[in-house]
């Protein structure tokens, strides 16, 4: 990986591993069996849906592979992935459908 020394790389891996372990261990082992306050749960519930769409959005609108130019195949693939996921509630079907649309767009249609 360009730009990160071996040390920086392993700091990232180790810190992420240790941090994630303690998130998983937190309420099970450290806090005991006291239930989490509803206020905290309310924020935690939305973390995946708050982080991942924001991460993906720029990648869909400005793909690295096209050096930032809008790409119909990628936008269609993203739309199909979301539509299938909302409709079927099945991650695997959604991934397969998204790749299907991406390749259809790249190799056949556009």
């Amino acid at each position, binding site marked *: 990986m360009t730009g990160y020394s071996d040390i920086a790389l392993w700091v990232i891996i180790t810190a992420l591993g240790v941090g994630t372990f303690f998130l998983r261990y937190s309420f099970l082992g450290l806090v005991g069996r006291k239930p989490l306050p509803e206020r905290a749960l309310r924020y935690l519930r*939305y973390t995946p849906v708050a982080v991942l769409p924001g991460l*993906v959005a720029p990648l869909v609108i400005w793909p690295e592979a096209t050096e930032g130019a809008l790409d119909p195949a990628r936008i269609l693939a993203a739309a199909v992935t*979301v539509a299938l996921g909302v409709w079927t509630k099945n991650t695997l079907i959604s991934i397969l459908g998204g790749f299907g649309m991406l390749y259809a767009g790249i190799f056949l249609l556009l």
Partner: protein
Amino acid sequence: MPITYKMTLPKQVRTMKTRSPITSAYLRGFVQGLPFTLVIFPFGLLFGVAATEAGLDILPVMGFSIFVIAGASQFTALHLMVEQAPVILILLTSLAVNLRMAMYSASLAPHLGKATRWQQALIAYFMVDQTYAMAINEYEARPKMTMSEKLAFYAGTSTVIPPFWYGSTLLGTQIGQTIPPEFALDFAIPITFLAMIAPALRTLAHVAAAAVSIIVALVFAFLPAGLGLLVAAGCAMVTGAQVELWQTRRKAAK
């Protein structure tokens, strides 16, 4: 008396009776985990491929999958590394993706909180979306399970899911370089993330949080790598929580 009764039972029922409840709990976990390998396998494969394409050697790639075992945060870290984000931002954002694990931990605590420290550490290490979801469904469906049965069930799910994650990552590192650029693997990350998020868009609050996350991330895309995303995630979490609160109050007022 119980022995003669047992002898008269059909063969299938007899084997079920003779198998200890702990063994059958373990086997239930194992069998219920099998279908999930279909999701784990391609996802792990993609991580191996994407990380190798990004220039990581096999050791760090496997280090991610073995020490972190959390796909979404691994992809987040990888993506931010490709963008050359500062280490602290990589850690903050990737850990934010894993905050849901604290919620899983809280929800498993009433069931497994009495396990020994050592058992709890193992439970924590193997806690991923799939093992958590299976365990909590099982515990709620069978409230009479003993602690040992609950642990055995969890051990069953953990025998299937994590090894598939390590193995598929390893396979991904091996086939990574052989995949030509036309196959647009750069888009594997967006597709897998969208496929993970879309099924979660089940309430107005979730949709609102996702929408705010997208808009704020695009507006702040000019900020140094990773920073815009952190701002977007914060705004989106508040949005989700507030919309939920507003809806609950409105329902209560009716």
